[in-house]
């Protein structure tokens, strides 16, 4: 797949892998022509617990299977036996990297099912928290793409800046990773004193980082060589596989929930998600880098427009006896990976009947990744996986 390379000696594919009359692969491991290689579930904290079962011939992958389930906690079952308010601490752990989208989706679902209007100040604060969550996630992922090519420096910067965002989270919500800030009807508190100033200081550091990572990664000859023309998503796959979010935008499809189905106060903010025409690893990383700039800009806009004070919580029934009539809905929001949806069914009791998470990784990491890895080089496996920004906890819940 690497063109323009003097080392590119394409292997003779006429003999291996052998195919039967219907074109199915006939892989006999005992013939010693193929090797089965397991990648994962060990991981150092970027990709998540997932394993790939790869059959390789030479250094090319001819069969790939994704194995998930290492992080399965049965959240959907657990939430069926918890009250609505008890679901909040449970559901945020469904995606560790960006827990706030779970909170927002669950709260928005409960509000829609029981007809509660959220005050404007709470909507602004929710938007702020969601954008901060996106920012801290992108700060891991953008340099993490370089990390898959052993470019570890950017990761060091990114994780440090992410910690600064987590500090702000701690100030605002009291929690470092899990916040439980969004509740049905509103949020838990107002901005602390001096928050805007400290936010601006952090954003300035991130501005520097944006320039530095541009020099470090996107102008880097090695990174370009490794990332260009590898791991291509064809435009026709978008609908076939159900690809969403940045992965779809990089292939030229404008799929952004914030624009398509404006929620919270996104219709009052000025932003334009980027699309690209050619989706390889380099362009997807570049697109996430643009997303990072856009998110910083969005947070600045929110900070400028957010009201000084206001009502932050609509009155709700007693949460311990809150019964919601039988109904169902689908709530979506745009996480940094794409459309993040909750399918919620209530049945008239104080516990949900069914809450089903539709995470973007569900399609990206299984059907799409298995498809993309065929004929890829084993050295590019990790890069392709990270470039799809897979998050295993949301696959298996």
């Amino acid at each position: 797949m690497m063109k323009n390379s003097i080392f590119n000696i394409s292997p003779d594919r006429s003999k291996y892998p052998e195919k039967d009359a219907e074109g199915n692969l006939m892989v006999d491991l005992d013939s010693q022509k193929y090797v089965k290689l397991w990648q994962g579930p060990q991981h150092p904290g970027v990709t998540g617990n997932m394993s790939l079962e790869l059959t390789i011939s030479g250094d090319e992958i001819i069969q790939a299977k994704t194995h998930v389930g290492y992080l399965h906690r049965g959240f959907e079952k657990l939430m069926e036996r918890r009250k609505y308010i008890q679901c909040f601490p449970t559901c945020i752990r469904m995606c560790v990297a960006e827990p706030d989208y779970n909170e927002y989706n669950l709260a928005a679902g409960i509000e829609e099912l029981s007809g509660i209007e959220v005050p404007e100040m709470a909507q602004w604060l929710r938007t702020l928290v969601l954008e901060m969550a996106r920012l801290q996630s992108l700060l891991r992922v953008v340099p993490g793409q370089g990390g898959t090519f052993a470019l570890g420096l950017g990761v060091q910067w990114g994780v440090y800046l992410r910690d600064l965002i987590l500090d702000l989270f701690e100030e605002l919500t009291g929690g470092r990773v899990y916040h439980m800030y969004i509740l049905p009807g509103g949020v838990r508190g107002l901005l602390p004193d001096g928050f805007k100033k400290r936010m601006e200081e952090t954003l300035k550091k991130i501005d520097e980082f944006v320039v530095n990572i541009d020099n470090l990664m996107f102008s880097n000859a090695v990174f370009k060589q490794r990332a260009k023309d590898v791991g291509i998503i064809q435009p026709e796959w978008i609908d076939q596989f159900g690809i969403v979010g940045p992965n779809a935008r990089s292939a030229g499809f404008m799929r952004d929930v914030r624009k398509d189905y404006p929620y919270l106060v996104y219709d009052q903010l000025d932003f334009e998600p980027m699309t690209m025409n050619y989706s390889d690893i380099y362009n997807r990383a570049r697109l996430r880098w643009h997303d990072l700039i856009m998110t910083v800009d969005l947070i600045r806009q929110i900070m400028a427009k957010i009201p000084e004070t206001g009502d932050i919580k609509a009155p709700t029934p007693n949460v311990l006896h809150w019964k919601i009539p039988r109904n169902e809905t689908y709530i979506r929001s745009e996480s940094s990976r794409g459309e993040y949806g909750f399918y919620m069914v209530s049945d008239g009791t104080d516990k949900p009947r069914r809450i089903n998470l539709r995470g973007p990784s569900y399609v990206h990491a299984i059907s799409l990744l298995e498809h993309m890895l065929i004929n890829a080089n084993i050295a590019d496996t990790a890069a392709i996986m990270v470039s799809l920004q897979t998050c295993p906890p949301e696959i298996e819940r």
Partner: protein
Amino acid sequence: MTNETNNIVEDKLELEDKFLAPENRKRQVTTPDGTIIEVDPLRDYFSDARPQIYRPNSIPVIENFLNWARAESLWVLGFGTGCGSIELPPLTTPRFDAYRFGVQMRATPRQSNVFIISGYLSVKTLKRVVRSYEQMPNPKYVIALGSCTINGGMYYDSYNTINRLDQYMPVDVYIAGCMPRPEALLAGFNKLKELIKAGKAEKANEYVENFDWYKANQKKIIKDWNMPDYNW
């Protein structure tokens, strides 16, 4: 060969074939030079020797020196098993910089001697964790992170996560919290260092002494036990 070893071998023969992957089944293989041999991967590729107790050196000065050296170079297996793994990158990057304490992440169990169980363990992961743990060379230590390893935490009623880690693996240090901050992790490392320097971090030997009990507990929940008991 002791009697116990024979028992392990016989247990293995009773494995149900349905759980075995095709490459792990007993079969006949043609080698490149044309001879046909019989292969039983679970018996041929692994040894049946039981783990050994790692005895401290009989001269106290040498043992103290060795313990000091061990305490100052804790190499962590980079295997994030649960949510806690999100706090491992901050731990190793400049903000918290665990390198100060001689802590660094390694990619394979063969190079590491500290296993951080970073949170809840589903049954499927426990199987991999046990294998990884047994591959680690002695002396080895386990740090269990988060309340879910202590008593199940918020997953106490989940059908797929274990409640108490110490039933399946020996634990040297627990760090409570959901999830513990990197500072708590650093404090945990310091505690582990104190234990090692005092010669009290001997849980790996407990695992060897109570090997059958641990194995019985593990086999109780890992229903598709399709690996040798101790093969590393």
